């Protein structure tokens, strides 16, 4: 091989090596795009729900209440007959079987929706109004185009006759898509069209709030101690080793810790944001201490020495000068730690947050779910409608994380002093 050939070969190897590097970065970036695109394409339709425009006539004979009834009377009254009478008029059905199939096109909450309309205006008896009633999950998915209608009938959840009704609705413009208020306001439900993340949102909020209240002060105090006051001795070394190890312990181990200590020994209530918050705080603590210490360490010694030189005590130099300067880094480290805690699932599953909770929790000691656990729960469900809801929940979760990370970056760039 001549000199020139060898040089060419070496240069080709150089190019190939660069190409490998560039490809790896490209593959990683491509995956981010695929993942986000996949979630968004599946989830964005969940923010709208399919409604069927129906005329509702409030027949005095089918109701036991009068015009001007009080709120309690309406809440207790039975609207089932009114619902049936009006819904079967939506399509000219021939017999009972056809009427049953027609009724299945509406959600399980049709009666409540009619009742709510009456609650808003209690003078409706004898009058007819048009209402947008939520459609059942199957019709919802069909209308959104997520459900193939060219399958043979026995493999479909929608019968041929229901398809005929659906086409009739489409032709008469009785079916449309509205903003999905249920998705944000409702708790969990077995029916995809009624299920929402309201409960999970509140549960996550309480958990993260408790986590913040516990982890932030302790982490800041601990890092101040370790960085500024701790003498160099065995105890300090031991604490440092512990913190570094705890930051790398798998999160599921914290779930076992919570199960044994918080639930079995102290007997705090199961499935509650309180327990979740404490567990997440224990888990996030070392992850906050590490950036806090880094930002304290970044404050140059001249600041401390300047304070000491004019007669401040060690405490005053730390709390009046070092800590305020380190605060932006401390806060952004805390926010990133909380963002990790917000997405954490495994320990919450172990403390029983997988329970099926319909009610929206009103305090941190009520059983509840949380956003990531809701994702896990719904992804286990078979209904097509839950795939869309799961993806939409992930979209909400990711947008919270993005906002938190942006705040962290902003705090650091805007307020952190650079020392050169």
């Amino acid at each position, binding site marked *: 091989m001549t000199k020139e050939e060898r040089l060419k070969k*070496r*240069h080709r*190897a*150089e190019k190939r*090596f*660069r190409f490998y*590097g560039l490809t*790896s*970065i490209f*593959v*990683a*970036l491509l995956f*981010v795009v695929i*993942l986000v695109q996949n*979630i968004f394409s599946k989830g964005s339709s969940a923010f709208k729900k399919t409604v069927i425009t129906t005329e509702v006539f409030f027949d005095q004979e089918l109701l036991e209440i009068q015009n001007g009834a009080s709120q309690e009377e309406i809440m207790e009254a039975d609207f089932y007959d009114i619902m049936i009478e009006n819904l079967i008029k939506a399509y000219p059905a021939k017999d009972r079987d056809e009427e049953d199939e027609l009724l299945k096109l509406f959600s399980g909450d049709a009666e409540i929706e009619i009742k709510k309309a009456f609650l808003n205006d209690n003078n409706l008896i004898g009058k007819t109004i048009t209402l947008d009633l939520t459609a059942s999950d199957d019709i919802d998915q069909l209308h959104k185009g997520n459900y193939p209608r060219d399958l043979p009938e026995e493999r479909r959840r929608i019968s041929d006759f229901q398809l005929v009704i659906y086409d009739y609705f489409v032709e008469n413009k009785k079916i449309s898509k509205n903003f999905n208020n249920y998705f944000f306001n409702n708790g969990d439900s077995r029916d995809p069209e009624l299920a929402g993340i309201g409960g999970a949102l509140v549960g996550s909020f309480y958990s993260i709030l408790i986590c913040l209240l516990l982890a932030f*002060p302790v982490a800041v*105090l*601990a890092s*101040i*101690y*370790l960085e500024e*006051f701790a003498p160099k001795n065995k105890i300090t070394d031991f*604490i440092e080793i*512990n913190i570094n*190890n*705890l930051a*790398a*312990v*798998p999160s*599921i*181990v914290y779930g*076992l*810790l919570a*199960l*044994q*200590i918080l639930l*079995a*020994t102290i*007997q705090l209530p199961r499935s509650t944001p309180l327990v979740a918050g404490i567990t997440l705080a*224990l888990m996030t603590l070392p992850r906050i201490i590490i950036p806090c210490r880094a930002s304290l360490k970044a404050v140059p010694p001249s600041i401390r020495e300047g304070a000491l030189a004019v007669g401040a*005590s060690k*405490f005053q130099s730390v709390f009046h000068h070092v800590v305020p300067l380190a605060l932006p880094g401390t806060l952004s480290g805390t926010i990133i730690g909380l*963002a990790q805690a917000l*997405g*954490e*699932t*495994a320990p919450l*599953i*172990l403390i029983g947050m*997988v329970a099926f909770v319909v009610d929206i929790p009103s305090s941190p000691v009520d059983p509840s779910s949380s956003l*990531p656990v809701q*994702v*896990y729960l719904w*992804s286990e469900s078979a209904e097509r409608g839950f*795939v869309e809801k799961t*993806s939409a929940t*992930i979209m909400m*979760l*990711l947008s919270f*994380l993005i906002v938190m990370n942006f705040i962290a970056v902003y705090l650091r760039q805007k307020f952190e002093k650079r020392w050169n």
Partner: protein
Amino acid sequence: MNIVLIFLITIFSVSLFFYGKSKTKTISIKDNIKLNALPKFYGYYLVLWCSIPALVFLLVWSLFEPVIIKSIIIETAANQGAIFSDKNEANLIYEKIKAIHLGTYFGDIDSILRESALAYAKFINLFTNSKVVLIFGIIIASVIYSLKKIKNNNKARDDVEVILKGLLFVSSLIAILTTLGIIFSLLFESIKFFSVINIFDYLFGTNWSPQRAFVRDASSITAAEFEELKDAFGFIPLIAGTSFIAFIAMLVAVPIGLFSGIYMAEYASIKVRRISKPIIEILAGIPTVVYGFFAALTVGPFFRQIGENLGLTVSSESALAAGLIMGIMIIPYVSSLSDDVINSVPQSLRDGSYAVGATKSETIKQVVIPAALPGIIGSVLLAVSRAIGETMIVVMAAGLAANLTINPLESTTTITTQIVMILVGDQEFDSPKTQSAFALGLTLFIATLILNYIAQRAVKKYREKYD
């Protein structure tokens, strides 16, 4: 009640602050003496003495009160003649008694329950009263003590700082307490588990089927039950499955992560680096449950479809899908750590290599990487420990049955999956099945601890070499 107490303590503290501040001021003016600290420090001194002992007492009391009351009540119920054979039934009776006391119980109330509920009300009253009395006693004692100190014109600033320093020290001790808590809670149940199951049967058994191990009464296991139990908890299939999925993950993460780390450290312009590094790190910020969802709903079925087209049987919960997605999650851990490590290789080594005519890639391959190797190995080990402790991806995308297999298209299970599966839903406490989850947790904890220790040592040694 606790909220009222905390509120009262706060009010006392705030008023004591102003009292201490003005009192010392007037003393110094009236008696014309020089104070040893600014007046506000005397205020702080009083606040700390008034609040900390009382709050610590309140916290400890609230932690232990329910447990103590419960054991007392269960005992009184037993004395009344209530019959319960195990802990669960005792708990149920206790819950009933509590519900009767709160007026939310609508079942039949017999004389035993009624008597116990009365006893419960009595004890709750007693405990609450003694709590209030004790807290006020503590506050009065500590306030008298601190007022006396102030009268003697103590060095309040120094004293306040000593107390605060103690507070800082206690906060940093929480890390040790957490570790102790983890070790205690894992060991406690594991020891019970290993008293039933031989540790060698666990470590070297090749069959994992805890669902078979149903025991009615853990305290008296019959010989037949024991035979069933003995070989239901073999750890080998789990560690095999865990390592296998982690191995697939590393096959994805190490090349991609390492090459992107090298490219970003050695080739990329500042502009490319500034954009691509945060985007790759997004991968580490996405919650693992999202990856799990993606693996289970998109990647798994996709592989099965490909397999069908090629005439292969691919399980929809294949180890391949879980491992691949886990690998992608781990890419940023490998890439940013190796980026850091490569950046800290001294420039002089590279310059030496260029000086003898090596190309850039030759320099990287023959000089930079060998120099950075301990650090790179350390970062790979950290990534491995992430992979074996990862839970949600495998729970959602890997299988449940413990198969001993090295076919990536079949489903396998992992340690973390089994922990979740055993502990989700209603657990029968004190059964070997529940305890086995803690034994698995202990094994996982020890394994990750060893990996992290080695990794951190490697990285630290490497750093010291070039500092």
